[in-house]
């Protein structure tokens, strides 16, 4: 049950937030802090079980175990370690946001979204079943949409939110398709079982399709090239949201899944080439640091070796710590100065010394400077790249590109440390207080914020330093079980700060040196970088595709829903004819002519049929709408007479009443129409209509005959006749079928009725107000 609690606690906490928010007012953030901390505590209490190699698990045979759809959770080293990061950083984010948000902002709504998102993310990492994982996956997309668009009055926030939702949502659909294919190929959706049967998946003819579909989900979520374009726009969210989404969650969900399916897919050439190349391109093109770091992790998982798995997993944890810290520092700067404009922000260390130190630690960790955690995982990254140089003619490119990408990271990290904090302060700078999102302070100079905002950053910076100096702790408690789970078997390794003068160390030194040179030349570099980042015009494609889609659907709607009843009838009838024709084409024989027909009350039926035909002939020639409707109504009454003759009193009664009510409805509509006769369609159209009517009527007649000729082994009518009285306590079979045997159908039907009535109500009322 403990695993469930980890997801349920934030979920329940989120659901009561709107009400609690009224009660607690400003203090609602503390409720979120408590909920996240409780989830974190629960995870910590699972430590023993995870380390003992007995992952705590929970499952329920719901909703459809026969179809591989069951809710199953487990906390193996990978899921548990990730969940720790999610809940841990989640707690810090809640604490920070409590102090970050201004009083005017809808606080309860913010924490509702945040906790929902956290719960969904915990669900992703703790799922033992791919179906469950996909559901939580989509929930993170939905929740992140709400979070990114939190300042929904701003055009840019809405744009960013839609973009994120569309791109990750489309990827999610691909992932669903991949999971379905995997289920069809193996008959299971259980991750543990799939891992055990990895060979079977890899040997399956659908392997490449499965791989590509799953990877589409991964790449869209973790903003890999060419799907990276949603990420920069998502930064319009409140900073605590960006900090959460782009360090420990959302984008990391993609990377998490990469680690999850790693033992199922790794070893195949396709896996290596697709994952590593996409990762490398992302790393190089992603001048935005989060994207670039995500590229690095992706490259490593693509290599699919033990060392790479270790390096990637290690880097995920390090990245979560320093990137969350960096975001929060940016948030503090934004909060204190009222701007995010790099050109304005200079030499802030004088005014906010503590923030500056913490920001520098996180930025340098991100740059991979020794004695900080980022250095260690980057070192492992280099080592992995260097190891493979001998494998082929152009393999030396890997370490070269790796260093190139890392230099970029180094440069922009330096830009934060030196540019924002430790450069010369411009004494004349005017801080746009109150600009941005209305949370600027009215008081003069920017200064260090209170412990509520500094505390979380301090803790994250402390993690960067601690892991950098003493990697053994993280290694023992989190990395060992996590890497073992990613690799699929226990892995022997030891992370050390000092390896001697190895090639990776040289590459690190080269990175730092080149980075410093480039930083000195940053003005010239900036222009190049801009061109690199935007040169491939992915955004143009996105915007164009979106506009095209809207144009296309508008055209389709206007063509099909043109307001002319004739078009609708043709659409419906032709579709039905097509469907019937296709199905019929597969049958061996129609069975209509072979059957022996018994016709009860044939004479009466024929007589009524003739009467109906005569009335219809009158209606067709009638010019006055009112007369036409009333005459048409008599057809209904004749049909109910037919039911009576064929001893179906219930149907007759229903038909009679329906007919009466319909005529009233008709009359009500008629009073809105002009009195004059409707214009008649051109002769050509009327002939076509008549032909269609004859064909459709003929097909329906033959269909009904064929259906009644198809003798089932035991007609269902017999069952109803026999069981109606003893099993449902009713003698009226029609009614018993409606309310009991087929009660579910009826429930659906009355629901549809209700929705239709509401729809009609809305349509008419809306038209009226316009």
């Amino acid at each position, binding site marked *: 049950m403990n695993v469930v609690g980890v997801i349920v606690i934030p979920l329940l906490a989120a659901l009561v937030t709107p009400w609690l928010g009224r009660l607690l007012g400003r203090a609602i953030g503390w409720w979120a802090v408590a909920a996240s901390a409780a989830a974190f505590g629960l995870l910590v209490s699972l430590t023993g079980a995870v380390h003992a190699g007995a992952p705590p698990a929970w499952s329920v045979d719901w909703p459809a175990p026969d179809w591989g759809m069951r809710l199953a959770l487990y906390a193996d080293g990978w899921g548990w370690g990730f969940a720790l990061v999610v809940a841990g950083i989640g707690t810090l984010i809640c604490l920070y946001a409590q102090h970050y948000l201004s009083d005017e902002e809808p606080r309860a709504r913010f924490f509702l979204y945040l906790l929902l998102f956290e719960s969904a993310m915990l669900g992703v990492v703790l799922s033992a079943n791919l179906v469950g994982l996909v559901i939580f996956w989509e929930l993170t997309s939905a929740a992140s949409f709400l979070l990114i668009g939190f300042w929904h009055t701003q055009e840019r926030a809405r744009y960013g939110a839609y973009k994120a939702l569309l791109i990750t949502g489309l990827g999610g659909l691909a992932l669903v398709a991949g999971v379905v294919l995997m289920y069809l190929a193996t008959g299971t959706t259980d991750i543990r079982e799939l891992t055990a049967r990895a060979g079977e998946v890899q040997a399956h003819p659908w392997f490449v399709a499965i791989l590509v579909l799953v990877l589409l989900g991964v790449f869209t979520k973790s903003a890999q090239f060419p799907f990276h374009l949603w990420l920069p726009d998502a930064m319009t969210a409140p900073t605590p949201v960006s900090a959460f989404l782009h360090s420990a969650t959302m984008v990391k969900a993609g990377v998490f899944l990469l680690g999850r399916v790693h033992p199922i897919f790794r070893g195949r050439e396709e896996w290596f080439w697709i994952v590593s190349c996409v990762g490398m391109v992302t790393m190089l093109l992603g001048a935005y640091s989060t994207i670039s770091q995500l590229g690095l992790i992706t490259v490593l998982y693509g290599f699919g070796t033990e060392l790479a798995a270790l390096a990637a997993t290690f880097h995920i944890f390090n990245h979560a710590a320093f990137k969350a810290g960096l975001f929060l520092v940016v948030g503090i700067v934004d909060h204190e100065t009222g701007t995010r404009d790099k050109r304005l922000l200079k030499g802030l260390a004088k005014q906010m010394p503590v923030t500056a130190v913490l920001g520098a630690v996180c930025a340098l960790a991100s740059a991979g400077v020794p004695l900080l955690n980022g250095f260690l995982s980057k070192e492992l990254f280099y080592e992995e790249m260097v190891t493979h140089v001998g494998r082929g003619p152009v393999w030396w490119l890997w370490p070269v590109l790796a260093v190139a990408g890392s230099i970029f990271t180094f440069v922009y990290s330096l830009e934060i440390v030196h540019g924002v904090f430790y450069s010369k302060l411009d004494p004349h700078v005017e801080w746009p207080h109150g600009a941005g999102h209305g949370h600027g302070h009215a008081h003069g100079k920017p200064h260090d914020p209170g412990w509520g905002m500094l505390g979380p950053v301090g803790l994250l910076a402390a993690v960067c330093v601690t892991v950098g100096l003493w990697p053994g702790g993280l290694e023992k408690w989190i990395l060992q079980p996590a890497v073992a789970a990613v690799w699929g078997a226990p892995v022997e390794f030891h992370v050390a700060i000092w390896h001697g003068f190895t090639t990776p160390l040289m590459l690190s030194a080269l990175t730092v040196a080149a980075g410093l040179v480039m930083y000195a030349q940053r003005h010239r570099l900036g222009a190049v970088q801009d061109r690199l980042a935007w040169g491939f015009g992915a955004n143009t494609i996105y915007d164009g595709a979106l506009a095209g889609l809207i144009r296309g659907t508008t055209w389709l709607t206007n063509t099909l829903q043109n307001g002319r009843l004739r078009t609708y009838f043709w659409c419906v009838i032709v579709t039905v004819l097509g469907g019937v024709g296709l199905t019929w084409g597969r049958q061996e024989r129609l069975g209509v002519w072979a059957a022996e027909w018994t016709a009860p009350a044939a004479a009466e039926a024929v007589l009524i049929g003739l009467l109906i035909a005569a009335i219809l002939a009158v209606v067709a020639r009638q010019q006055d709408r009112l007369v036409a409707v009333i005459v048409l109504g008599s057809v209904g009454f004749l049909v109910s007479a037919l039911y009576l003759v064929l001893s179906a*009193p*219930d149907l007759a*009664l*229903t038909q009679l*009443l*329906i007919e*009466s*009510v319909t005529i*009233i*409805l008709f009359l*009500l*509509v008629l*009073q*809105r129409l002009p009195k004059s006769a409707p214009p008649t369609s051109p002769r050509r159209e009327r002939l076509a209509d008549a032909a269609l009517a004859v064909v459709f009527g003929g097909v329906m007649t033959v269909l009904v005959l064929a259906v009644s000729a198809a003798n089932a082994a035991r007609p269902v009518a017999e069952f109803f006749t026999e069981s109606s009285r003893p099993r*449902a*306590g*009713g*003698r*009226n079979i*029609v*009614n*018993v079928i*409606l*309310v*009991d045997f087929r*009660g*579910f159908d*009826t*429930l659906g039907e*009355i*629901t549809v*009725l*209700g929705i*239709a*009535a*509401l729809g*009609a*109500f809305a349509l*008419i*009322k809306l038209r*009226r107000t316009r």
Partner: protein
Amino acid sequence: MISLILATITKLVFPLLILFSLHLMWRGHNAPGGGFIAGLMTAAAIVLVHVAYRGKQVREWLPMNYRVLIGVGLALALGTGLAALVYGSAFLEHRFGHFHVPGFGEVELATALGFDVGVYLVVVGVTLMVIGTLSQEGK
């Protein structure tokens, strides 16, 4: 303009129509009738009053929002289905039993009747809501 003859007859017939429709619903399980038919008949009866008395009078006699009827009916139908879950049966599995009611003798009661009442309310609500909106629109 109110037709005196129609109004007088409506006043006499309306209660009978309602009673008859309720009777139809009650006996529906064993004889022709049921919630759907009864609902239509009730709706038709109320429409008759509308025709005879022109709206205003009706709102005085039957001051209700038909939209609410739809919700109540759906909830009732769903409720009888969910109630079955409480007793460990499948969703919408109905039960019935025989009870002795003084003055009436042996009476059979089925939970299906509750479901049927739900259907009845939905049908009444839907019919009157659509007719009501259309007739208001016409003015």
